[in-house]
């Protein structure tokens, strides 16, 4: 077993070419912080990018940042914060949920898993902000796509193609992202005591208003008790986050309170406490319990989410909370994965995709971790994989068995 830790782009090319020559599949990782996600791999060799790190370009006034794939995300976030900027897509940290320390992960891993956070509603995910990539394909060839400017339609957008590809198409060696000003301040409106369906309606009113709601989440009572040290109490909490310049945030807060006056009892959470609240929602802290209990991440039609959860509860013991106005549901199962039940309900309620993000390796090997695709789409995905990695040497089976 070999672990290659290339220090240059040339060495990454060499490593892939060796793997090709030896017909030896390799695992591609940064720091390995997301090994617990996706389908488990059984490769003998590993290419670890953690030594290929460093910022290659940061021009705050141009809103661009380029860095090598192994650069720690935490380091980049600190660099951006010093210029009052941020990755606007708010990449989540899977560490706590997967029983790992917080603050791990690299830029390459961030793109390969298309991370985002509660601001997804308004600001998109990693794929919406990536501008350019340099990639070593599974053919052992270095290619580039995109650029370092924020507006570009020259050729296919292979940068987006690398997003959510889990290292199966190529090894991104250097990545350029659009970065944006961090909000000057933020504040969260809390509505207490709503049932899931009432919360869905309140969130729809808020996100459909001129309040420019950046995030909208609903935590049922038992989940609400597990964020910001229990400060929300044990009552269901519907959360609406407003960000921006202070006078604007205050103005919109007043507007929203008037708009939703009849919805329920209200409270504010502001400043650092609000930031911490949304970070805990982002990182699934309510389910970061040190166990391997199964956790699903479901992306779906926002207004249908509470119906899926209600139906699921009729047949299984499950803990749930909602982000993205309901468009993202986190489910912690008390027992079996119930993959078929979750996915059948998902189809019934408007479609989307369910990903098993936590569970023992044996379960992740047996249950389709990612949403199974319809035959023509699965065939197209497979053809794309073959065009990038015809020998199937990069992270084989990480997403789908046999691909």
């Amino acid at each position: 077993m070999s672990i290659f830790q290339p220090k240059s782009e040339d060495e990454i090319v060499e490593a892939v070419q060796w793997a090709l020559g030896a017909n030896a599949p390799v695992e591609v990782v940064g720091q390995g912080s997301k090994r617990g996600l996706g389908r488990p791999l059984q490769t003998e060799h590993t290419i670890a990018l953690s030594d290929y790190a460093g910022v290659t370009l940061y021009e705050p006034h141009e809103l661009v940042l380029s860095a090598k794939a192994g650069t720690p995300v935490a380091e980049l976030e600190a660099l951006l914060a010093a210029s009052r900027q941020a990755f606007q897509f708010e990449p989540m940290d899977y560490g706590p949920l997967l029983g790992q320390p917080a603050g791990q992960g690299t830029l390459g891993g961030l793109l390969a898993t298309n991370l985002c956070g509660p601001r997804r509603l308004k600001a998109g995910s990693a794929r919406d902000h990536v501008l350019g990539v340099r990639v070593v394909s599974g053919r052992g060839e270095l290619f580039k796509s995109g650029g370092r400017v924020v507006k570009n339609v020259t050729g296919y957008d292979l940068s987006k193609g690398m997003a959510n590809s889990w290292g199966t198409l190529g090894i991104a060696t250097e990545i350029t992202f659009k970065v944006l000003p961090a909000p000057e301040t933020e504040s969260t409106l809390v509505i207490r005591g709503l049932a899931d369906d009432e919360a869905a309606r309140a969130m729809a009113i808020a996100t459909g208003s001129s309040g420019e709601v950046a995030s909208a989440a609903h935590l049922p009572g038992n989940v609400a008790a597990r964020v910001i040290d229990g400060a929300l109490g044990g009552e269901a909490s519907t959360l609406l986050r407003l960000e921006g310049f202070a006078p604007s945030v205050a103005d919109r807060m007043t507007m929203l309170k008037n708009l939703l006056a009849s919805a329920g009892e209200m409270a504010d959470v502001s400043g650092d406490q609000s930031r911490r609240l949304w970070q805990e929602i982002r990182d699934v802290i309510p389910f970061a319990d040190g166990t391997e209990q199964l956790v699903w991440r479901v992306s779906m039609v926002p207004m249908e989410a509470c119906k899926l959860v209600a139906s699921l509860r009729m047949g299984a013991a499950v803990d749930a909370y909602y982000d993205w106005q309901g468009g993202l549901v986190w489910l912690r199962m008390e027992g079996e994965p119930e993959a078929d039940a979750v996915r059948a309900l998902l189809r019934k309620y408007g479609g989307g995709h369910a990903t098993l993000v936590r569970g023992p390796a044996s379960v992740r090997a047996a249950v389709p971790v990612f949403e199974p695709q319809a035959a023509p789409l699965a065939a197209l995905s497979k053809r794309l994989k073959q065009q990038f990695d015809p020998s199937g040497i990069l992270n084989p089976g990480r997403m789908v068995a046999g691909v």
Partner: protein
Amino acid sequence: MTGLTMPKSDEATLGRRAEIVTALRAIVPGEGVVDVTNEMRAFESDALTAYRQLPLVVVLPQTVAQVSRVLKYCHENNVKVVPRGSGTSLSGGALPLEDAVLLVMSRFNRILEIDFPNRVAVVQPGVTNLGITKAVEHEGFYYAPDPSSQIACSIGGNVAENSGGVHCLKYGLTANNVLGIEMVLINGDIIRLGGKHLDSDGYDLLGLMTGSEGLLGVVTEVTVRILQKPTTARALMVGFPTSEEAGQCVADVIAAGIIPGGMEMMDRPAIHAAEDFVHAGYPLDVEALLIVELDGPVVEVDHLIAMVEAIARKNGATTCVVSQSEEERMIFWAGRKAAFPAVGRISPDYLCMDGTIPRKELPKVLAGMRELSEKYGLRVANVFHAGDGNLHPLILYDANIPEQLHKAESFGADILRLCVKVGGVLTGEHGVGVEKRDLMPEMFNDTDLNQQIRVKCAFDDKHLLNPGKVFPQLHRCAELGRMHVHQGKMPFPDIPRF
């Protein structure tokens, strides 16, 4: 037509024209197949009117099943297909080929569903960009990307070109506002990507499709995000003695954490042409004019207007006017929005270019353009989406003077080379099409381009969809499939192993 080389027509296909027309009529009955020369004239070019070509035959399907059958027939019979929306491409993306079926999607013109609680609209691809906004504005919503052709361009075309617009620095491009599509591959497979939910379950094929210029598939349905309209918008009109000062003002606005709804710059020739045409009250003694628009809640807009005004004055603005009414805001914009026709008044013809540069390089690029202008003996006026560095040089020429079109094209190519040289790209929002196709090697080497073509091979193995666009030359998929593996021992002693 000047130096443009399109793929050689296939004599066998031309010889089978009658048979192909009959087969298409069997799939799309009635007036859905157009094969009379006079009637096909309407389709012989898009908005890049310098290039014209009659198609083999025009087909206007009405259902997804028809699209699928047409494409499957063409795939099985090795007939090329050029997809077309409204035909407003500025890069020749919908230029027909003599031996290709022109697949026109304009009859897919229905809004299928408006879902306000989930803030999406589901529409057919032939619906115009502005048509989406018109369908949702009674509830205060709109569709954010606003290419200048929005009254005519179709949402399917927007997906193909990843269209932008004046507001895309703040609100994103088409790629950031489309949640799902249904599309048909050349083999007839019908595929759904995304929907009313967010992000992909697997590879981001929606990301690859957006901006693929009709080379990967034909879009038959689009799900878009709709947004609540900002409560208010106000604009500042700011004049500077130099483009450097205007550029610094833009940088300082962004450094202050402000992302304006729109931030447009014009150079002296563009200012003068626009002012002569619409009398917007633009100052004529400045080298650069900025229009900065702030949108959002009234309180926020007032707060930011004051900040931007202070930044402008600090950077040496000689004119700085804040709109006091909606009418005044529209007047500020009238000149900018009329910049293209205004230039059309002072010159018989013009070419509209579309590069993006790192913003800080603007003075260097403008200086370079002045030199090129002298070299070619042609005038140039510039409008600039200043926030995102997207430059639209308008090259003035007279098509009636022999060689002037050719000169203008060479001038344009040199400008784009300059954009790439300073770290920019060939096209910010108009697409590569045929116009910039032969410049692709300025930005990409063979390996880069071959990997792009391999993506094409995954979708369209016979290269039948929109040939002659985007890529200078298409290598056969089989040829690209070969691998050259350095059969190996472990050849890299300097890579640490454990």
